[in-house]
């Protein structure tokens, strides 16, 4: 059976070329970069430094501005908590958008507990942030502004360039979570005046367990881990050398090939987008044009997200939902079972929608795989609607009304 993986926003398959670059660092080159008096340590140190330069090149930064972490969550935590504390005792205000990832949002909990004031920026119905709203939100005591580059659930690309210029004028440290965008669309810190940028290797065909935080020279960030002096003191602990090497290799590939990937993905995305128009009462989410290539997100009236995904999986199509019902399936708290915060932020009515469906295509996807999804969807939607009491009522109302 043909299988189609359309959940690249959650993770991407490792590029085999990246794997080949990593391979020697599992068995042959096992040194610790911090213990480099001998050959093994030297090899590891050189590999990590090379990867640092490669990741820096992807975003137009200097090698010395890249701190390796375990992934986007750690990078976001370090950026938010580290920069808030780094701003000093007089600055106790943090501004973030309403559609940030949990690793930004939940990092605000300890800040609030410590007495910080938090301003959440509203988004428009496409999930876009208005730079003017940023201008109004920033204050003399604002320690940090954090805005994602692209939203994973609805694909919208935020105007981080103009927003960054506002932050710069106001003298506020600006963090950009580029987890979903880096390696897919250009992220250049010469265009985006960010002080901190989060990157994640497994989101651009690199390995899991490797991430980075770009720190513009002079940005004050207080470390969150305590130990040795690895990563210029920002992140104690022995580097995950094979994963870091993989992140460097993935950054090279992305820098070289992302234009071709984007073109391929935009074509497939358009086919999917156009094909979905055949399904009645389907609503796209996110910005129609300012969005990640190959990212198609929508919700369907009278259809619950998880059920749709389960049926799609049976047909070999793997997609994701932003609905808490499925994404928090392994959560422990019924309070998790609320409509997606992103959907709520963009004003999707919660009485008819509990989850958006996200198809995030990758460079390996084909037109046949898109066809598989388009062939499967109408029948699944029909089947679930036939089971839904809300659809029954809707139909009865239609008959009465018409």
């Amino acid at each position, binding site marked *: 059976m043909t299988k189609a993986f359309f959940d690249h926003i959650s993770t991407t398959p490792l590029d085999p070329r990246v794997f080949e670059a990593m391979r020697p660092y599992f068995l042959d080159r096992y040194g610790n970069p911090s213990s480099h008096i001998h050959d093994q340590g030297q090899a590891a140190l050189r590999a990590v430094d090379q990867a640092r330069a490669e990741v820096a090149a992807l975003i137009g930064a200097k090698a010395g501005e890249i701190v390796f972490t375990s992934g986007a969550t750690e990078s976001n935590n370090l950026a938010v908590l580290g920069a808030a504390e780094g701003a000093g005792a007089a600055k106790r205000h943090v501004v973030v958008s309403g559609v940030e990832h949990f690793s930004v949002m939940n990092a605000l909990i300890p800040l609030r507990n410590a007495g910080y004031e938090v301003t959440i920026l509203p988004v428009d119905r496409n999930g876009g942030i208005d730079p003017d709203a940023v201008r109004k939100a920033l204050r003399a005591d604002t320690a940090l502004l954090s805005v994602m580059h692209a939203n994973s659930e609805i694909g919208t690309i935020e105007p981080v360039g103009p927003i960054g210029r506002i932050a710069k004028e106001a003298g506020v440290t600006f963090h950009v979570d580029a987890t979903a965008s880096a390696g897919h669309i250009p992220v250049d810190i010469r265009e985006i005046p960010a002080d901190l940028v989060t990157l994640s290797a497994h989101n651009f065909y690199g390995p899991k367990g490797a991430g980075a935080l770009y720190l513009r020279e002079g940005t004050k960030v207080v470390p969150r881990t305590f130990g040795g002096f690895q990563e210029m003191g920002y992140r104690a602990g022995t580097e995950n050398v094979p994963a870091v090497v993989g992140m460097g290799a993935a950054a090279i590939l992305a820098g070289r090939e992302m234009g071709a990937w984007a073109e391929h993905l935009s074509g497939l995305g358009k086919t999917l987008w156009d094909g979905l128009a055949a399904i009645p009462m389907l609503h796209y989410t996110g910005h129609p044009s300012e969005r990640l290539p190959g990212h198609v997100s929508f919700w369907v009236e*009278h259809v*619950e997200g*998880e*059920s749709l995904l*389960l*049926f799609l*999986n*049976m047909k070999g199509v793997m997609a994701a939902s932003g*609905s*808490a*019902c*499925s994404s*928090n*399936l*392994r*959560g*422990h*708290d*019924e309070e*998790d*079972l*609320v*409509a997606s915060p992103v959907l709520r932020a963009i004003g999707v009515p*919660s*009485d*008819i929608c*509990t989850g958006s469906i996200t198809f995030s295509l990758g460079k390996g996807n084909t037109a046949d795989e898109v066809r598989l999804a388009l062939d499967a969807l109408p029948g699944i939607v029909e089947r679930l609607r*036939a*089971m*839904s*009491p*809300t*659809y*029954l009522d809707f139909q009865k109302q239609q008959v009465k009304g018409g």
Partner: protein
Amino acid sequence: MAAGPYSEKVMDHFMNPRNVGEIESADGIGEVGNPACGDMMRLYLKIDEGKVVDAKFRTFGCGAAIASSSMLTEMIKGKTVDEARAITNQHVADALDGLPAVKIHCSVMAEQAVKSALDDYVKKHAG
């Protein structure tokens, strides 16, 4: 076949739900849940001589909600009104070979639906 976090039985009842539909002139109708909370179930009962002779449902919800609804209708058919009222969410979850912790509320919804439908039956037949 088992898929993801669900038992084979849940998947069977999700993929091939039993007793989907409506009963014209049902003796009791129960509706619980709310689409805003992720799921909603409507249960129709036909009751004859104190026994549930037919049960049908429509559910908007996740895999566990649909499977719980389907399993519930199978469990209550042929039962007396009192027996049906005694069914708990645990009975439904057990019959499905268990539900993930975060989906227990789906079986609770099934229990509430049958109680609500039986209340409706009592109300309709009180006079």
